[in-house]
């Protein structure tokens, strides 16, 4: 299993989510973060006070996936988060030691496997 951590632009988040869902990647967590990735500095002025904004609003997306899902996940993010300008963000892939799905107690591979097909225990609600 791997943990894919991506930091992307706030205005690309919806695109990224859409791409991930299209690629059948459904279990994820997002966090609003601030970061600095070498983008153009933003200069703002409030009355006489001029400031350089060194931190930009970003969104961090964390996705736990089984090994063979790493590539489609990364591809989906690369394709949807890119604008070509500095500040598009990063993707990190980290090893994961252990995973539990809290609801069932499933472990590891089973815990990060998406519920296919069509959420059997939800009575076909999906």
């Amino acid at each position, binding site marked *: 299993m791997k943990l894919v951590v991506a930091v992307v*632009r706030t*205005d*690309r988040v*919806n*695109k990224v989510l859409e791409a991930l869902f299209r690629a059948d990647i459904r279990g994820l967590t997002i966090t609003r973060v*601030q970061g*600095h*990735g*070498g*983008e*153009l*500095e*933003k*200069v*703002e*002025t*409030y009355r006489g*006070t*001029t*400031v*350089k*904004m*060194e*931190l*930009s609003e970003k969104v961090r997306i964390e996705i736990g996936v089984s090994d063979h899902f790493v590539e489609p996940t990364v591809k989906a993010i690369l394709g949807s988060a890119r*604008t070509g*300008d*500095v500040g598009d963000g990063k993707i990190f892939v980290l090893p994961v030691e252990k995973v539990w799905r809290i609801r069932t107690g499933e472990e590891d591979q089973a815990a990060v496997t998406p519920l296919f097909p069509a959420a059997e225990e939800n009575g076909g609600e999906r």
Partner: protein
Amino acid sequence: MTPPLNAADTAWMLVATALVLLMTPALGFFYGGLVRGKNALNVLMMSFVSLGISGVTWALLGYSLAFAPGTPFVGGLSRAFLAGVGLQAEGTIPHVLYMVYQGTFAIITVALISGAIVERMRFTAYLLFLPLWVLFVYSPVAHWVWGGGFLAKMGALDFAGGTVVHINAAAAAFVAARVLGQRRDYARLAILPHNVPFTLLGAGLLWFGWFGFNAGSANGANASAALAFTNTLLAPAATLTAWTILDIYRSGRATAVGAATGIVVGLVAITPAAGFVSPISALAIGAIAAFPSYFAILWRSRTSLDDSLDVVAAHGLGGTVGALLTGVFAEKAWNGTTNGLLFGNPQQLAIQAVAVLVAILFSAFSTYVLLRVVSFAVRLRVNRRDEGTGLDVSQHGEEAYTTGEGAVLVLDYSPSGSSAAPLAEGGHA
């Protein structure tokens, strides 16, 4: 020969002028709440800056083009730079007061257009567009209806500006939305209002200011003002009621954005009719006006027309319905001059229709030409990157909701300096 000044009329018109002026900031909040947070200041500024530019334009030339004696199509230049606009009576109020009262109308009319072009227009292009539109579109149309122009002579009824303000602005909004094109995210991503309470606040303040807009259009503290005032309360009340019922019937829930929109539609619809129809007719006009605008808004969002804040559906349709229904419900018993269709004068409806059509065609065509002219001087749209970042930072160098985290104080910043150099273009893996 000039009639004397009337103290009561003057007092009311002083208040009414301030009320109408308040509508423009109110519009800023109504619109500002409906856009994404990264564009909130830009949208507010599109309204606020009109207080400056349109106000100056109006005093220097606009008032003359609208209200000085001239041809049936545009006023002359005899009042340019406020020549002869002094303390003497115009009607029963000082001429300066009449001029400035009318100025508040010019200010809000051009600001109304901004709702169709939010989140993408360059601010400098908008700044150039404002005075041109006031001079070449607003002033002539105001002259046609209120300055003794050809629509006035035809007998078109427009009490407070259904045609001059709302239909005029909406036709311009339609064209502006087309000329600028869609926002990049339009119909691709969900674009949600970032602050619905702002929108409700704006709608509430618009209603408050609208009492000055409609009742002030009686130009005095008189029975006609009282009728317009009453109708300005009743018609939006009916629209809001109808809108809420439509919402519940259609989706089971009464929405807040819908309520704010319904209030504005009702206000727009009663504007041309305010001093011409009975209070019961005002209720009918308000209720009827809800339907076309309600369904037009639902339909518009599935079209390619990115009239982002539905200026056409709210002000165009609301204004048209109001203008036509003025020709239906006008009642001599209440206005002393003219009957409408229901009271034996079907011809009035035809006159109203002609006035609406002429205003739409003129405004649409002129707005197209003006935007083309502006586009020769400066690009109309922000670039892709700035649209993504948001117009607050790119156009104004400010953010509506900044935390201040990561802000480094700059003591010797020069705008033309090296600030555009990226910190780390290469090397940063």
